[in-house]
């Protein structure tokens, strides 16, 4: 499984052509306590950088964007019921949605972990 990162602090964790999307630990820390999550609909086709989920923290509203082109195949309802999961386990139980990725090369073009860590350092 490879994981890639966007400049907007989303991650996409690939398993075959299915990518699990969420926000990084760095992003959740900057946002503060999440209090509201609005997920995209299953079946929705997303273009790269398109707003997919809406999130609200105690401080601000933000969007989770699609890292690459693809179709939403599953959303994590657990974070809708308990948005704090995104704060406590952003890259585990606090994932947002799974998407069927249209073009694997687009994922490979995103930052790897070392590049992302250098960006936020």
């Amino acid at each position: 499984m490879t994981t890639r990162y966007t400049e907007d602090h989303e991650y996409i964790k690939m398993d075959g052509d299915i990518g699990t999307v969420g926000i990084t630990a760095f992003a959740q820390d900057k946002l503060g306590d999440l209090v509201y999550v609005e997920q995209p609909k299953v079946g929705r086709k997303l273009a790269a950088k398109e707003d997919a989920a809406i999130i609200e923290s105690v401080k601000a509203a933000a969007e989770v964007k699609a890292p690459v082109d693809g179709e939403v195949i599953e959303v994590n309802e657990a974070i809708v019921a308990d948005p704090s999961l995104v704060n406590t386990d952003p890259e585990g139980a606090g994932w947002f949605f799974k998407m069927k990725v249209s073009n694997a090369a687009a994922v490979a073009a995103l930052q790897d972990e070392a590049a992302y860590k250098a960006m936020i350092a």
Partner: protein
Amino acid sequence: MSETLSKTPLFDLHVSLGARMVPFAGYEMPVQYPPGVLKEHLHTRAHAGLFDVSHMGQVELHGADAAAALETLVPVDVIGIAPGKQRYAFFTNEAGGILDDLMIFNVGGYLHLVVNAACKAQDIAHLKSKIGGRCEVRVRDDLALLALQGPGAEAALTGVAVGLIPSVFMAGGRVKLAGIDCLVTRTGYTGEDGFEISVPNAHCEALAKALLAQPNVQPIGLGARDSLRLEAGLCLYGHDLDETTTPVEASLNWAMQKVRRTGGERAGGFPGASVILGQLDNPSSVKRKRVGLKPEGRAPIREGVEFQDSAGNKIGIVTSGGFGPTVNGPVIMGYVDTAHAASGTKINAMLRGTPTPVTVVGMPFAPHGYKRT
């Protein structure tokens, strides 16, 4: 930003406590500590929180004529504030708008004012130019300000105090805390019982550490201060109040005593009196009102979001909005046309372009814990 930020006497303490520092009203201030806004908010409501509000302005008015002079700038009964008592007030302009809101404490012999950080330079200039000839306007840059708030505040303050502490809401006096002479008032900006403590800059850190050493006292940042005051239905200047908002529109009639109103012994005589008294005398002339609102859903609705009626006409705007941790849901303060201001009225907030149902409700959103008797 090329502007140099000021630091309060507690800057080093904030950093050592792991605070996230942000620029606020020209100061580097702690927006949150490691527990985060949500936990800090809930801690304050359950126990006690210590806030550094040293960025606020502290000004003294000295002289026999000080109270009468100040009455020429505020639509409030200042002469009637008994020694040892405090009162909420606001400076008005000629249009009846609000220049800033403030607290006036009659220390006994002089008045101690606390004004907003972002407005303090203009407030001081205003005081000096308008009433500087009638009383001495003494700026107390040498004083810091701490707020200790929450149901555990009394026990925590008692733990460091020698002698009596102010016993009821809006009372105050001199108290020796941790060996330091302080000016303490039983007031605050969270809706909870609590105190504001004026302390010399040089002793502020020692006092803060002594208070933080009391059981169940945690440092609280500006983030939770904002969610606490919003749940308490308290206005934030520059958002819920400004130069275009009259006190009547802002639903602050309670803060304007009878003696300054039409028919009162000292009616009028403050900037914008004709506008403000006109609105008080003829409530149907008031076009908009500040109200509380609650959304039906879970999504926070923030400052700047427009209200519409069912026909799609703009009927108001959100001036403060967010998630209320104690309410455990979103809460809104905003202005609506008077026709829609009655409690129970349902209107729409245009959240990301989508009409979202909200209902006008009474404030506060979380019950006040003031110690009134």
